[in-house]
Structures are given as C-alpha cells and as structure tokens.
C-alpha cells in the first residue's frame, strides 16, 4: 500500500520546523543575545503558530513565476509607450514620491527582517522573517525596475537613492525605519509587521495602487499585484506576532501597549505624505484621505482593536486626534510642499477649479475655511509671474521630522507646538504623540539627523538654497519647482499634442 499522502501541515513541518536543531556546545543566551533586552518574556516557542505554511522550495517556485510575469508586462509597457497612457504628467509626481519615499523603505525592511530573523530562537519565526526579508528585497527591485521606465521620460527619478539619505522630507520615512531597525527584535516586529504592515498598510498600498489604476499606470498596478500576493503573508505575520507575545506572559502587555501607541503614531504621521498624494497628486482621484481613514482605520482598525481588547490592549493613544486631523493633514502637507517646491525633486501646483470643488465637497468643514484662500492667493501670484517659494527653512518635529504644520485640536487655525527639555537643550514636537515618544526614549531621539539643523550647521553643501539643492543632486528648474513651468509639462504637451494654453514663462527665480 502506498504511504498516505502528507497533508500541507505535515509537509510544512518536515520541510521547515524539523530542519531546526538545538545547540550542543553554545548556550542559547549566547546565540540569541537580544532575546531579553526588551523585557519580553517568552516561555514556549513551540506555541508559535505558523501564520502561513510555505516551504522554502515552494517559495522559490512562486516568486520565480511572479518575476517572469511582472517583467513580461514591464517589457510590453515599454514597447507600447505605456507612459503616454497616464492621465497627465502631474500623476508621475506621485510615482516620484513613491520611489523616493517608499521603495528605500522596502530595502530597509529587507535588512530589518534579516536581522531580527537571526535573533529569534523559534524556527517558525525564523522562517517567516527570512521569507519576508527576501520578499522585501524583491519588492524594492521590482519597484525600481518598474518606475525606471518613467525615468526615461520624466525628471526627478534619477537620484532617488542619493536623495533618500539627504533631502528634508525624505528624512521622514527614513527616520521612521531607522527607528524601527535600531530597536530590539520584538519591537521591530510590533512596529513593522503589526503596526505598519497590518494596521496601516492598506492606507499606504491601496491609495498608490488604485491611484495608479485610476490614472492609467498599468506598470505600477502590476508590481502592486505582484507585491500584494506577498503582503498577505506579511500581515498575518503581524497578527501572529502580537498574539504570540501577549499570550506568552502577562508582563508583556504593558510593553506591547507602549509599542503599539508609539508605532501607531509614528506610522500615522508618516502617512501624511500619502494623504497629500491622495488629495492633491492624482489627476483622477480614488477617494479622499478622510474617506480612506474612516474606512481603513476607524472601521477596520476598530474591529481589530475590539478583538485585541480581549488581551487587555486598548486602542492606540491619540487615535482620537487622528480622527480630528483627518480634515487637515493632506492640505497642510501639500501647502508645505508648495512652499518648498524648489527643494524637492518633484513638482507641485495649485489645484484647478474642478479640483478645488472636489476638495471642498470632501472637506466641507475645513477646505473653504482654511485652505482654499491660500491656493487662490498662490494661483494669483503665479499668474502674475510671482510664483511663491518660501526662502526660509521650516522648524521640524524632533520625532517625526515633519515641519510644524499640524493643528491644535480645539482650534484648527492654530499650529500645535510642544517641547521637552533634555540635558539642558530644548526639543520641539508637532504633537503630544511625538512628544511622548521622545520623552520615553530621549537618549535615542537626541541623535536624530534633522535636515534643517544639518543645513544650518553647514553639513548640506552650503548656506544657500542653491548650494543645498546641488548637494541633493537636483537640477534646479528641471527636477523641482512649479509643474506649470517644468520641462515635464512641456514634454507632455508636446507628446500628447496639446496646445499650451498660456505662454509658459521661463523658470522663476528663488524668492
């Protein structure tokens, strides 16, 4: 009689868990040195439930086919001049934001999972981290390859790697991930696998991918699908991690709660960039940031935190503030980028009349009252040939590194400022959430590389905007500034044979 066919669980066990071994001539605590540093107590690694059962041999087979399909589509995209099918060239700036802001984070995620996978004694956790490390490396590659198609035709893509470590707004995503990888292994997983991949990822990936689909960018949609098939594994890992830590020992609860509070707030602040992309950078909009936050955080997140309440976990601190701010952050951020368009490697613009109407319908309580007048004023200035560029440098929050643009909750016209003293110096924050994070670990955040401080200290190429822009490897008047006057726009009009509506003045000088 033939042997009984192994079911999926048995196959997984034989091909994965059974491949581990115990150390006989080294002590576990010498091999896994970071296991106790965070105060997390694990009593039994065998209680780790594998969130998915994929053997390594099957993994290679899957990923190989995904790659073949993706690159076939990218080739077809290139041959058919797919870049001409996007709604208009303003859309491409959303891709510049993605490539400069998000793709390098995929690479950091690769490094992070490789590092923490090494630290866990449980083989289930090791394998999950190893696969995710390889996934993330694949994601950054596919993103760079896909978006590089656009680099042949549009400005601003070419120096994304150099810029990620230098440009002022890119320090926001960079410092987020640096914070996570420099934490201990359990905090890293809580930060990235749970708070980011599970609680917030829909708000990062969904807007970019549906934005791409709505705006005719099939190349980006394809790498999105290719990545999403890995994403489901990452999300279930995030849930398993939290359950596992909480079930292992009651002492873990307050530590995990503190991490959830911290990483919810860190992630939420990072999503400010996505909010701005959704409301301002997509010529054809998918949904407003406000609607996305309601659906993906308030509803879906609400259900998750109701289930987590059984473990004694409460909703992340300051979540109520995110609900008030949903009416404001996208506008505040776009206004900031409009101010500093000469120092960012993508273009900004004022919304046209139809877009203003959309914004005012989606944000009935705030847009007309606080933001429309600014855009109308800026648009007028621009028409007079006096496009506004802010010649000063903004004050940054020490924790999230975003300029101080967030409001007080009881008066949305008032900017929120907080500060803390530490060893004789004063540190500034955009919110109570960011101040709490600093106050819990000041010795960590006093080391922050804050771009504005660095410019003033003379570490960024010089004292003038021109010097700094050069140090950023940006070509002034080409990669940056107003969309209306950009070569991107001139080229687009030429390729799509659109008559230029008005005489486009040459590039405007720095104000």
């Amino acid at each position: 009689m033939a042997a009984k066919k192994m079911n999926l669980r048995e196959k997984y066990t034989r091909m994965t868990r059974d491949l581990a071994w115990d150390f006989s001539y080294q002590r576990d605590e010498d091999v896994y040195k970071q296991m106790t540093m965070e105060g997390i107590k694990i009593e039994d690694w065998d209680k780790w439930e594998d969130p998915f059962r994929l053997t390594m041999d099957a993994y290679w087979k899957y990923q190989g086919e995904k790659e073949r399909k993706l690159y076939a589509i990218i080739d077809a995209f290139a041959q058919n001049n797919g870049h001409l099918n996007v709604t208009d060239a303003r859309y491409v700036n959303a891709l510049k934001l993605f490539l400069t802001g998000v793709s390098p984070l995929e690479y950091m995620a690769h490094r992070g999972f490789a590092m923490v996978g090494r630290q866990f004694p449980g083989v289930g956790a090791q394998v999950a981290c190893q696969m995710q490390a390889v996934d993330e490396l694949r994601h950054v590659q596919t993103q760079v390859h896909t978006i590089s198609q656009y680099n042949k035709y549009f400005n601003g893509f070419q120096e994304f790697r150099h810029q990620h470590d230098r440009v002022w707004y890119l320090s926001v995503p960079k410092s987020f991930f640096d914070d996570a990888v420099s934490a201990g292994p359990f905090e890293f997983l809580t930060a990235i696998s749970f708070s980011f991949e599970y609680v917030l990822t829909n708000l990062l990936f969904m807007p970019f991918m549906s934005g791409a689909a709505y705006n005719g960018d099939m190349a980006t949609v394809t790498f999105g699908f290719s990545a999403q098939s890995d994403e489901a594994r990452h999300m279930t890992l995030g849930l398993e991690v939290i359950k596992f830590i909480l079930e292992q020992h009651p002492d873990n609860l307050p530590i995990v709660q503190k991490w959830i509070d911290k990483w919810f707030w860190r992630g939420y602040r990072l999503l400010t960039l996505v909010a701005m992309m959704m409301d301002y950078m997509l010529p054809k909009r998918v949904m407003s940031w406000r609607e996305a936050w309601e659906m993906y955080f308030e509803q879906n997140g609400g259900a998750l935190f109701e289930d987590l309440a059984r473990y004694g976990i409460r909703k992340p601190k300051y979540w109520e503030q995110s609900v008030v701010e949903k009416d404001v952050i996208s506008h505040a951020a776009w206004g900031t980028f409009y101010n500093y368009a000469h120092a960012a490697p993508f273009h900004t613009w004022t919304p046209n009349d139809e877009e203003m109407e959309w914004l005012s319908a989606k944000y009935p309580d705030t847009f007309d009252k606080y933001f429309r007048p600014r855009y109308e004023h800026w648009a007028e200035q621009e028409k007079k040939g006096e496009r506004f560029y802010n010649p000063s440098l903004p004050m940054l929050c020490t924790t999230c590194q975003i300029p101080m643009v967030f409001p007080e909750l009881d008066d949305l016209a008032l900017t929120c400022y907080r500060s803390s003293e530490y060893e004789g110096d004063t540190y500034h924050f955009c919110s109570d959430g960011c101040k709490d994070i600093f106050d819990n670990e000041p010795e960590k955040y006093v080391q922050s590389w804050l771009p504005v401080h660095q410019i003033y200290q003379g570490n960024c190429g010089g004292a003038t905007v021109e010097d700094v822009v050069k140090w950023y490897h940006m070509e002034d008047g080409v990669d940056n500034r107003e969309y209306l006057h950009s070569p991107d726009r001139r080229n687009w009009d030429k390729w799509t044979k659109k008559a230029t509506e008005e005489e486009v003045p040459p590039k405007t000088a720095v104000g």
Partner: protein
Amino acid sequence: MSYEVTIEPLGETIEVEEEQTILDAALRAGIWLPHACCHGLCATCKVQVTDGEVELGDASPFALMDFERDEGKCLACCATPMSDLVIEADIDEDPDAEVHPVEDYRGTVVSIESVTPTVKRVILELDRDIAFQAGQYINLQLPKIDKSRAFSLANPPHDARRIELQIRHVPGGEATTYIHQTLAEGDVVDVAGPYGRFFVRTSDPGATLFLAGGTGLSSPKSMILDLLEKGDGRNITLIYGARNRSELYDRAFFEALAAEHANLRYVPALSEPDADDAWEGEIGFVHDVAKRLFDNDFRGHKAYLCGPPVMIDACITALIQGRLFERDIHMEKFLSAADAAQDSQRSPLFKSI
C-alpha cells in the same frame, strides 16, 4: 442547481450553489477556511482540488500561478464548482473529530414538557438510530415553516433513537412559537443531521470547563453524560447561568449526577435572582462566576462555551484575561435570525472564536 463539495482533511461535505464561491459556501456552513482579501489577490485561501472541475474565476495571475493551475489549485474566494468536488484545504485535522454522515430522519414527538416558563423539552423518537458526536446539532423541519431550524442534541450519543431538544420560545419567532403552542405528542417532524464541529477534545489531557447559558445547556448535557459514561476521570466543571430560579432547569439532574461522580462539579448561577427565590448559590453572570471560582486563572483547561452571543463574548474575554487562549476555547454560538443580522464586522485576529 447545486454541487456537493467535500472538504479534506475534515471530511465534511457542504452544498455549494452554482455561481457561489467555495469560500462563501464553506463559511456559511460554519467551516473556517483561511482567507483574507476575498477577491483573488492575496492567495491566502488557496486549496487543492483533488476531484472534480472548478471555474477559477478572477484569481490574479500573481496569486494563483500557472504551475498551480496545472496542479489543480484554485482560490476558494473566487472559484465556483462545475461538478461535485473534493478539495484539500490548509486546515488542521482534529484528532478528536468524528465524521458522521448527515442523513434524513422522521421523528415522532414522544413528549413535550415545560421545564421553565420559556423553555420546553421535546423528546423525539426517530425512525432509526442516529450516529452523532456529543455536542452536535440537528436541523428540524416543521410543517408549513419555510426553513429548518437548528437545535443541539441534549442526549448522549448512545441514546441513538430517542433525541432530546431544549427549545426556548423566541418572542415573535415563527418556529419556536409553533413548537411552544402547536406541536403535540404524536406529531411527526423531519430531522436532518448531525451537524456542527462542537465536541470534547478528549485527546487533550486538560481539565474540562463548560460555560453555558439558557438553552446552551443542551450540548454540555450530552457531552458530560458521554464523558461520564465512558469513564473519563478528568475534572469537569459546569457553570450554568440562568436569569432566576424559574429559568433554571435540570438542576436536580445535575446535582444528582455530581453526587454520583466525584470528578464533576456543577455550579448553577443566577444573574438576577428574584427576592422569593431564596437563592444561596452563585449570583452573577457566568463569566464573572467563572473568574471568581478559578481566581482568574484558567490555564490548563479546555473551555467549551455554549449560549447566546453576549454570554459567549463575555466568556471569551474573561478566559483570555485569565490566560486561556483561542486554541483552548471551543464554542457553539446560538444565533437567532436577529442575532445573526447584528453580527458586527470582525478582524482576522481570531479564527475560531
């Protein structure tokens, strides 16, 4: 037109309508299959078709690979059957689950007895023996009432001919009103079963804790009688909650049973005893009584919950806070049509509770 789909390794067979996805049918039949995005992108719900034909639906080429299509894999969230099927899903076989085929029976009402002002005990004599596992339920088809209704079996499996149902009158409920007001001794009704995956995990050495409320007593009664008849010596605790003394039933039966079996502890609890109940037993909701009795530490147990949704919900929280987790919590939710409509959005944090 519908097809029969057998889900391995459970060995359960479900009906799937034409155009209905396998995942949808399975979840509606109470069988959990892994799933996440529900529209063909994430591949969490991938299953192997071992027999029969499926239409793959809108499975993304990145979620269901070409080589997998060749191997007969499909995504349950978008695959629809084109014939009867056997599929193998990535779910755990439970060593304690018995598989009994669902069959149709004719049942004659032997007795109907009011055990409380709102609950009747109905004894049916079947036309032949029914094989089932303690904890399972049957569907009762009543004359002139559109859909069948589910009721747990309160008799142990060795009483295979005479089945006991405990039925609460749901105000305004068509079927339970019929049972309480019209059904009479000698009537004949249609019975189909057994159904459900609620049973005692005897292979686990842990002590057994039953938390029951209202007519949620029926399954635990069958399960406890079955354990005791088989000579299982583990500690068994039954905490049974009722509003007041008039709603508390089968008390004498369980007290006698506990007196006979040293390993059975029976704890009746009233949530709102009347002044003239002269109640000296436990007062409070089932989960609060359990917390007190176990000093908020449920480790080392297997818990079985049976009763209305609010009671189940409160018990799950109490157990988890007392460090008993999903893998050791088993339950049968009693949903009326109104409860089911209210079932709120859930996160994927828990699979089976």
